[in-house]
């Protein structure tokens, strides 16, 4: 993919998954960010009785294009530079603010998502909106410029955090020099914990992606370890341990528990065979397909069990040349 991008140069750039993710992140942010996070807090206000000529001075000095109009602390309108231009056309700058302001103001709440403000801008055809708190008291003002700045700041923050994580993790094997470097992740899994079940697998999948694994590889590992994690939750007496060893050339995943153990390992490996409880079935498990699925996702699977003692499941995925984690030279 990267070589195609280079061939096309910057102008003919292909939209990659990464780009698409960033576009939708802007949409997401317009729901995530609150008006209070991007608005301007220090607001100049005017009163309805004040002459327009004095407002002109406030706008000029503050380099702003409009002000909220307050009467007894209550928001009663907005006066914009366009309103003043109208007054100027009629040579009426000594008229009070009241006669030229837009009354019956549209405002947004501090707790509204910024998408609400964006919608209101186009709906009411205004360039700025007063912001009020839950009690209707003026808390600030928001413009399109404030929103652009807010989204850019948030994107930059996002980008830095995740980019830094991926960068740090993906260079792990390169940055450390040894004859053989491995990364080991361990998770303790509780029996019958259906609510938090899958969390360890979710962390493992994310770790692999950050280390630079392809989405396909991360999905294969994720599915295999998730099925194995659910097996610990459903079947083990006291829970068990997940151990994932990441080598530059392979991924070795293992679950162990202290019982009850499997009576007939061959039967357990048969598609559709299940000993799951009613509780597990209600959660959508116990189809008897777990081990079958695991086998399809990995290169080697070993199931060792002694009834009355415990079970060990080993899953190995060998990485092809293109998939290998980069090592120091």
């Amino acid at each position, binding site marked *: 993919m990267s070589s195609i991008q280079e061939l096309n140069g910057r102008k003919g750039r292909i939209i990659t998954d990464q780009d698409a993710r960033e576009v939708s992140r802007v949409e997401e942010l317009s729901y995530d960010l609150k008006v209070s996070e991007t608005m301007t807090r220090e607001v100049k206000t005017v009163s309805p009785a004040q002459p327009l000529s004095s407002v002109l001075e406030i706008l000029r000095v503050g380099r702003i294009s409009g002000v909220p109009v307050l009467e007894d602390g209550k928001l009663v309108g907005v006066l914009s530079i366009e309103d003043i231009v109208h007054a100027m056309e009629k040579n009426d700058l000594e008229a009070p603010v009241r006669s030229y302001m837009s009354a019956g103001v549209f405002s947004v709440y501090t707790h509204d998502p910024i998408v609400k403000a964006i919608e209101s801008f186009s709906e009411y055809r205004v360039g700025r909106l007063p912001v009020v708190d839950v009690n209707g008291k003026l808390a600030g003002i928001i413009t399109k410029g404030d929103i652009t700045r807010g989204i850019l700041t948030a994107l930059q923050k996002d980008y830095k955090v995740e980019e830094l994580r991926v960068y740090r993790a993906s260079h792990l094997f390169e940055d450390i020099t040894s004859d053989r470097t491995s990364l080991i992740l361990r998770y303790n899994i509780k029996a019958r914990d259906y609510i938090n079940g899958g969390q360890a697998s979710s962390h493992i999948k994310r770790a692999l992606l950050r280390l630079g694994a392809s989405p396909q590889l991360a999905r294969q590992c994720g599915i295999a370890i998730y099925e194995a994690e659910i097996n610990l939750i459903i079947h083990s007496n006291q829970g068990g341990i997940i151990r994932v060893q990441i080598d530059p050339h392979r991924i070795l995943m293992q679950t162990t528990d202290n019982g009850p153990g499997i009576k007939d390992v061959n039967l357990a490996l048969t598609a559709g065979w299940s000993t799951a409880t009613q509780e597990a079935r209600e959660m*959508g498990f116990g189809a008897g397909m777990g081990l079958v699925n695991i086998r399809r996702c990995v290169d080697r699977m070993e199931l060792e069990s002694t009834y009355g003692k415990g079970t060990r499941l080993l899953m190995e995925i060998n990485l092809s040349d293109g998939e290998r984690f980069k090592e120091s030279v």
Partner: protein
Amino acid sequence: MNVEQMVKIVNGTVLTPGVSLSREIKGGCGADLMSDVLASIQPDAVLLTGLCNIQVVRTAQMADVRAIVFVRGKVPAPETVQLAAEENIPLITSPFGTFELCGRLYRAGLKSFETEIPSENNV
């Protein structure tokens, strides 16, 4: 089709307002057993299910499922919705049952991602 177009076809209501609906869906799968979902390891699917618990979201996350549609107007618990929002997986509830939903989406050109259970020989 993308998630947003799919929502229209199923007369759906989106339960995760902050999650983007722009991602492409390439196929579908209808299942109440999570291992059946995990058996179709092709990415970019929509999952139609009657199951409403948190493991549906975990399963979707593992299998790179792009959207989950709950059948017959079912609505999952807030924890499930919250996890889906964190993992950026849109949740949709539709008034139709699984049979009708499959029909609608299949007619709209969506492929089936459901696969046969592998026999012992070709595992």
